[in-house]
């Protein structure tokens, strides 16, 4: 299949892997964080780690939009969904995320009208088809999905749809990366930068990572060869004692991002003073809300939400996993009390969550897997 197979070629991968191994300095170990959950998913889905030398460890970062939603926000959304005449809509990934009192799927089973949509425009369509209902879109995601939420609000305004609103949970990637860089318990050598976020924000916002923290970052695509190539680029930078922002995903990511998408976000949304991230705590100026100008489309203003903070279960170590301090299997409850069927933490819910990816795709000793798959 064109545009897919050329990025998954095993021969190319083997050649690239040999060059990666050659670039590693003897006796040195490397830790690279892939910020984005999409990369985590790709790494496990294709078995990319099989190509990496033991000296290179990939650490999974906080860039899974579902994983960073705090439990209190899920409860708020379920509270809105339980109001009269409300149809709550959200992406499929959100359906199983546990709040303090269950997930969307549980609320739906108890009678709430919660529907899965593929795009916020589908939610707007539902609003148009159900004029007597109040349709709310649970918006989640980084700068990747924020523009489509913003464009939908603009469309709702242009079409005069007044029964549509957004429960905005959009977050921004840079403050999260900064929080990780400032975290005292982490030693990283470089970053594999998020690809789809960068299609919107471009590569410039990452310059502080190289300049102020001395870490290389390579913005990477989501095919397995993209990831391997970005590892190669990082190791090349380190070998040449360079420290820069590089764009491996130039076929999709413009250096300056997408000005139209950014303009739509700026028109409809504004930064919150602070926002709680699951496991990471409050991070200032790290999330977006609907701005006052578009108040009539803001579910937080339309509905009285409890806005309570629900503490993460004490057994859950999602925070450490999201920061890359712990590997998923090092968490106390990983795979026993916390599984994809009965997740305690969000990292176990989304297919992009580090724990779910590890549990579903990688949960086994590499040695035994290697032995079993040998022809």
């Amino acid at each position: 299949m064109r545009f897919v197979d050329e990025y998954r070629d095993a021969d190319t991968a083997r050649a690239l892997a040999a060059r990666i191994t050659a670039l590693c300095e003897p006796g040195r170990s490397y830790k690279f964080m892939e910020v984005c959950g999409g990369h985590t998913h790709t790494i496990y889905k294709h078995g990319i780690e099989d190509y990496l030398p033991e000296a290179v460890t990939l650490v999974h970062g906080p860039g899974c939009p579902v994983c960073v939603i705090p439990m209190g926000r899920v409860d708020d959304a379920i509270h809105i969904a339980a109001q009269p005449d409300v149809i709550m809509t959200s992406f499929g990934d959100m359906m199983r995320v546990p709040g303090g009192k269950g997930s969307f799927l549980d609320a739906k089973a108890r009678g709430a009208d919660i529907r899965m949509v593929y795009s916020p425009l589908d939610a707007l369509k539902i609003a148009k088809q159900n004029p007597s209902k109040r349709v709310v879109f649970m918006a989640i995601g980084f700068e990747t999905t924020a523009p489509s939420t913003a464009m939908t609000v603009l469309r709702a305004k242009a079409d005069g749809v007044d029964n549509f609103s957004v429960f905005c949970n959009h977050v921004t990637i840079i403050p999260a990366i900064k929080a990780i860089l400032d975290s005292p318990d982490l030693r990283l050598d470089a970053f594999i930068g998020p690809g789809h976020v960068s299609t919107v924000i471009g590569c410039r916002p990452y310059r502080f990572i190289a300049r102020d923290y001395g870490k290389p970052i390579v913005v990477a695509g989501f095919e397995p060869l993209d990831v391997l190539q970005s590892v190669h680029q990082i190791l090349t930078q380190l070998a040449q004692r360079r420290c820069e922002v590089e764009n491996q995903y130039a076929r999709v990511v413009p250096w300056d991002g997408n000005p139209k998408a950014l303009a739509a976000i700026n028109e409809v949304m504004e930064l919150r003073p602070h926002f709680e991230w699951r496991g990471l705590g409050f991070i200032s100026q790290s999330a977006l809300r609907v701005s006052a100008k578009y108040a009539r489309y803001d579910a937080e203003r339309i509905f009285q939400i409890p806005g309570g903070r629900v503490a993460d279960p004490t057994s859950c170590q999602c925070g450490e996993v999201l920061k890359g301090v712990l590997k998923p299997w090092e968490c106390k409850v990983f795979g026993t009390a916390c599984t994809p069927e009965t997740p305690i933490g969000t990292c176990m819910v989304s297919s992009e969550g580090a724990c779910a990816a590890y549990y579903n795709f990688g949960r086994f000793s590499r040695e035994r897997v290697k032995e079993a798959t040998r022809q």
Partner: protein
Amino acid sequence: MTGDTGLEEQVLERIERARRRKARVREEYITLAHGAGGKATHTLIEGVFLESFRNALLEPLEDGAVIDEMAFTTDSFVVTPLFFPGGDIGDLAVNGTVNDLAMCGARPRYLSAGFILEEGFPLAHLRRITASMAAAAKAADVQIVTGDTKVVERGKADGCYVVTAGVGTLDRPTRLSAAAARPGDAVIVSGPIGEHGITIMLARGELDIQADLTSDTAPLNELTARLLDACDDGEVRCLRDATRGGVATVLNEIAEASKAAIVVNEDIIPVRPDVRGACELLGIDPLYVACEGRMVAIVSQASAETALTALHSHPLGREAAVVGRVNDDPPGLVLLKTAFGGTRIVDLLVGDPLPRIC
């Protein structure tokens, strides 16, 4: 990384122990995940139905029960939309039960048909459904010999639900079982996977994706008869049609029941380009997408070639392929050698395969 290996191994063993614990349904309400064919469905079946009905015939949880020289099975159909490219709820209901009997190694003979109809359901639609059931029954050489009808108030059902049950006769001494896979056996898939599931997703019209796809719904009894006739008794270990939950779910059931590992090669598993394209766009793995006319066969290594030749001789098995093999270790696990050249686990899904957002 090496220093961690011992510790990681311990954690992984702890997880395996946790997975072997008895299934317990924790939810207070039925959710859609309970019907999706993944882990939640298995937990429901083992934690509620098997708990209540436990007996020696039910316990193996095969596609049908084998009683002396007879196989007996049932299946219910709630598909939306009722009519889709390549079929409708009628032929699906006949083929589904015919296939469950065929997977027991039986010759399907007689079916029952129950209808739950919603007030206001157009009679023309019902006629269309019964006509395709009649055609499907004829094609599979079975008779629908008994039935039942219920009508519920408007809003209490989605137009029409169909429940079929069936009996078949076991003409061969071979007894098939998901627990019969042995290390060294070949894993065969009878044709391109995922066409039914993707066709249905697209037919719902919620996704703006166009593809020239039709459901693969078909009776597999002729195909299984050819396979079983070609191979010596006992050489075919197990047959399973890859319906809800797809090939991945079937492989997990076999690995679990046989306490063996199954290793499959992603690049040999037949998937049509349209299905692959739609799956790529939706972020779904075709291994988990439902088929209604495809099966997985576990066959001894010695008979693999014979089996493949027999399957290739039938139109429904023309693209059959040996996609992997059975191993002794790690027991209960399905492993995939990815087309990219890596390896990973293929686990049961928790619920529906949900599209990823970005």
